[in-house]
């Protein structure tokens, strides 16, 4: 059991770092109409869904810290948001939600929309930016991130579940 947990910890850590590198090193340059995708929030949701509330919160915290580190001017927005989301996803998966792709998809979209709205709000409230431009940027970011929902789901599921022998 301990070995399985350790393996899961190592796999999840490797996945988190890989997603961080992809988000900062690759997709910060490969933009879609000026928007970059968010991968770490998807990881936080997946980690919560497959590892439960407590571990989800911890993985969310790690993902949030990395996410804030990769972006300027977000303060602790993602640290707080992803911790809550990881915990919440884990909590719901323990009591209400099934640990499948539909649940992951719905929760990921919700987190992506919340992230975009919170980022948008900062610029709307403090910088008086054009609301339409902000909404378009938020929409592009959410849509671009949406492409990665299935690959991230498969990776997190593989990293979090122990491999059954004979398969």
């Amino acid at each position, binding site marked *: 059991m301990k070995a399985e947990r350790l393996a899961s910890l190592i796999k999840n850590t490797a996945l988190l770092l890989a997603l961080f590198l992809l*988000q*900062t*090193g690759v*997709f*910060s*340059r490969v*933009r879609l*109409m*000026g*928007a*970059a995708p968010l991968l770490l929030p998807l990881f936080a949701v997946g980690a919560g869904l497959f590892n439960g509330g407590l571990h989800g919160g911890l993985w969310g915290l790690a993902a949030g810290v990395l996410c804030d580190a*990769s*972006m*300027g*001017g*977000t303060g602790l927005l993602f640290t707080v948001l992803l911790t809550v989301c990881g915990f919440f996803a884990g909590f719901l998966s323990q009591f209400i939600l099934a640990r499948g792709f539909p649940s992951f998809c719905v929760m990921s979209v919700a987190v992506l929309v919340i992230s975009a709205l919170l*980022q*948008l709000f*900062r*610029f709307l409230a403090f*910088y008086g*930016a*054009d609301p*339409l*431009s*902000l909404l*378009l*940027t*938020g929409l*592009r*970011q959410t849509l671009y991130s949406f492409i990665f929902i299935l690959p991230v789901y498969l990776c997190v599921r593989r990293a979090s579940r122990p491999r059954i022998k004979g398969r």
Partner: protein
Amino acid sequence: MKAFFKKAGVPVLAALALAVLITAVSYLAGGAGLFSSLIGGLLSPVEKLAGNAVSSLERVYGYMHNYDELVRENAELKSRIASMEKEARLSADALRENERLRKLLRLSEKKPDYRYVDASVVSWDASSWASSFVIDKGSRAGLKEGDCVITEDGYVVGLIREVGANTSDVRTVIDSGTAIGALLQDASITAVAEGDFALMTKGCLKLTYVFDNSGVLIGDTVLTSGTCGVYPAGLVIGKVTDLKEDRSGYGAYGVITPSADLKALTQVFIIKYYEADNES
């Protein structure tokens, strides 16, 4: 002997006669060509086959005999190729850096009061809401918040927003938080070049607060005016590539495309000191 010639005398004589006849015919027909070619024609496929077999055997033998040597040689050649490729890469990098420094030297001749620090771009901001990047120099290299960042050609890249010990965060000119006192080179019209959310996604910025809109033309070069005290005067921001009406319909603004190729940035130069900057 008598008995032999009695028995085989006629065939031997016939064979000798045939041989003499062939030799004579060959000689009369132009040397030994006919006979040789006949023999050669019959034997050449066999010779070829034998030659190929020998070559194959030689190759197999050579391969087996020299295998270890070949492996060693192969490893050595691979290592040499890797080393040469590394050298080629380094030399290409050095050439590019050399070119950039040459350009900077030309800029230094024009602006002798500028003091620069060079830095490399480490990473770009992963956010969709900002345009900024991290460089590999910080307060230890003498950088401070608000220092102006340019390319080797003297094109404005942006401004240092945050400084760490060994890294700094640079906000580019197209970021929505940017506002630079600007001057149109040809018309000497003052304005403000500022970042705009909608234009940032297209890699452009806005030329606003133009007091005489009629004087702004597409293709005008926009320079820093130096009035805000952050950017030195006379640095190139970009060119006016479009003129648009603002949403209210009462005013107009220009769209500036930065002269610095922000997507291709690898090395930048930070102006640590210039004459108007007496505090530095």
